[in-house]
């Protein structure tokens, strides 16, 4: 496990600190270069490739972007190609990235926006193949980026990349600077919270999109990934039904202020059946009302740091507990 916290003067300072943190902790830096208002960062850990881009008031960071963006965008890929086509969009057009193939398509990304000023605090967490960044974009308001491989249920088997995911809070089309929850779903029209790789014949794109319904405008891959959080705590509609929905609604408990840390389940919907693939073992999910911001909880020799998904005052009040000490 590795952990770092600090502050940054802005989103581009933050991506620099991220690059240093990853490099210090065993990641290969395939590229780190300035581009327009930000930087593009390509990192690799084993066969997991992550492509990251910072931007500060820029309108065409990613395909399907509809308005100016201040923040960090990312996607995953199965390789790195310094000469990938796409011009300014080549950063998210790496081999095996989510999204359809085609000369006019450059892949899909997830974004964490709203980073218009100095970053009061950030928290980086890293383990063998997982990473989580919690970014306080203004006092008490948070955004998240993350990637890793699921702890798969059953024999992982299949493709070595099965269970690989990258995510943030929303897609790049609209509301991209607005507060949305990580590990959640929303309308496909707004984009994808996270993309999950799972190699099944039914999905030629290999990536599943964490949305409640496949959106138009080509912003989602062919099939849906199921999320642990629902988009809305109060929604009672299967389209918003995160795996943990009913339990999250009952947190914190009236008895003893009970706030369990629940597994971060992820699954996929294929045309024939749904599959509960596994869970992200760096993360547990709960609601922030049962904790102080940044509270550390020791359970079974592990220490979890609990931070708001968006803010303490957000209507859903979700919280993410990240493993700080294994």
């Amino acid at each position: 496990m590795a952990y770092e916290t600090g502050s940054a003067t802005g989103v581009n300072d933050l991506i620099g600190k991220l690059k240093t943190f990853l490099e210090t902790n065993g990641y290969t830096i395939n590229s780190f270069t300035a581009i327009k208002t930000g930087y593009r960062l390509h990192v690799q850990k084993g066969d997991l490739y992550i492509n990251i881009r910072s931007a500060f008031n820029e309108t065409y960071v990613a395909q399907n972007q509809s308005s100016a963006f201040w923040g960090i965008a990312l996607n995953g890929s199965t390789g790195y190609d310094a000469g990938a086509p796409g011009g300014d969009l080549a950063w998210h057009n790496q081999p095996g990235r989510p999204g359809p193939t085609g000369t006019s398509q450059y892949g899909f990304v997830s974004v964490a926006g709203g980073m218009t000023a100095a970053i009061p605090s950030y928290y980086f967490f890293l383990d063998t193949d997982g990473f989580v960044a919690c970014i306080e974009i203004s006092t008490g308001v948070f955004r998240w980026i993350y990637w890793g491989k699921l702890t798969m249920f059953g024999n992982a088997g299949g493709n070595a990349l099965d269970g690989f995911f990258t995510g943030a809070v929303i897609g790049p089309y609209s509301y991209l600077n607005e507060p949305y929850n990580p590990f959640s779903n929303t309308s496909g029209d707004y984009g994808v919270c996270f993309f999950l790789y799972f190699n099944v014949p039914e999905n030629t794109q290999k990536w599943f999109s964490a949305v409640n319904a496949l959106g138009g405008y080509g912003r989602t891959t062919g099939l849906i990934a199921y999320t642990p959080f629902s988009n809305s705590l109060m929604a009672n509609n299967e389209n918003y039904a995160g795996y943990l929905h009913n339990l999250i609604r009952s947190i914190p408990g009236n008895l003893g202020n009970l706030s369990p840390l629940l597994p971060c389940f992820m699954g996929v919907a294929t045309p024939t059946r749904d599959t509960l693939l596994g869970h992200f073992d760096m993360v547990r999910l709960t609601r922030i009302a049962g904790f102080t911001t940044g509270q550390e909880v020791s359970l079974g020799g592990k220490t979890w740091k609990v931070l708001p998904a968006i803010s303490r005052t957000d209507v859903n009040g979700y919280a993410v507990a990240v493993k700080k000490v294994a």
Partner: protein
Amino acid sequence: MAHQTGTADNYKHLLTKLRKFITANNWVSQRWQTSGTGAIIKVQSAPNEAGSGYAVNDVLNVVQTGGSGATVRVLTIGGGGNVLTLELVAAGSGYMADSGVTTSGGTGTGCTIEFEVNGEYELIAKGTGLESSDEIYIGIKTFSSDVGDYYNWLLSGFLGFNSDLEFNNQPGGIAVTPERPRLSLFNDTMKYWFIGDGRRVIVVAKVSTVYEAAYLGLLNPYLPPSSMPYPLVIAGTHTGYSGERWSIQNASHSLGIMVPNCCNTSSTESDILANPRSSCRFWNGEWHGIQHNYNNTGSYQTDWKALWPYCRYNHARFNNLRSNINDGTYTLLPVILHMNSPSPNIFGELDGVFFITGFNNAAENIHTIGGKDYLVVPNVYRSGIFDYCAVRLS
């Protein structure tokens, strides 16, 4: 934790066997009685202990405190005079069903027998927990109707036991109105599974072509005893609303450990608050009825008191779930008792009961997961993807 699988002759015999099982596993029988005269109506042909030195046609006295006048006759013996088969001669009175009951008389010694008596049975038992220091009270009463062709158990839980009070008036018992959880059995041979320790007992019975399951005892709470001192769950499969017979197929006949459902009794959410009739009841200072839905549809969620993940809106994310895709193994999920209103709470997990998908699965399958065996149990008569649970046997 212990488990036992076998065959019972009928709904009363099943309770006799259950009593024997739990009293060998940290439960103490507080009351074991019949509504009848205690006349023996059936003796198991094979003795529990064969003894030795007996002769054919020996007539043996049945020796049990409170009983008198019953005798059995030795029909066949083995080479050492060990009893192979016997039959009832005189019914006597004042007996109570049991096994391993001593006999006297005849030419030999050591023969013990098992028998049933007339009337309906009543069992009240105290669980002593895992360290023999707890006091967990549960009760089961048999009831039947030849006219209605039903032969069932009535289930309850208590805060204590008072030998002067009848079943319905035991301290803290589930109120008689609205009706209490039941288990639909029948008056014929049925396969059963008992799983138990000093905190709770689970009964699974195969009744003709359907499966019934009961859970009596504590759940595994997420809070210490100071906050949740007595998390008692009593679950059957219905409350008699739509009839009592095992063959009834509607939403009100459903495993209380999965989808405790009384949809047909309530068309609005507010009705449910006023009428906690449910096949699963939970003690949290008062008896709560667990129910996921109302108006007989999965999209009308109560969210008042529910069992995750079975409580999901239209069973979303779990009703089309396949087994693990790479190896066909199964992932188990705990069944978590929680509620959202009038106050939010997550109480804990049913002990030894898990969600499992019905994909490529079948009743009575045994899955070994993490070195433990799990019995697959369908929700009464249902066979859909969402209609199964797994009960840990080991």
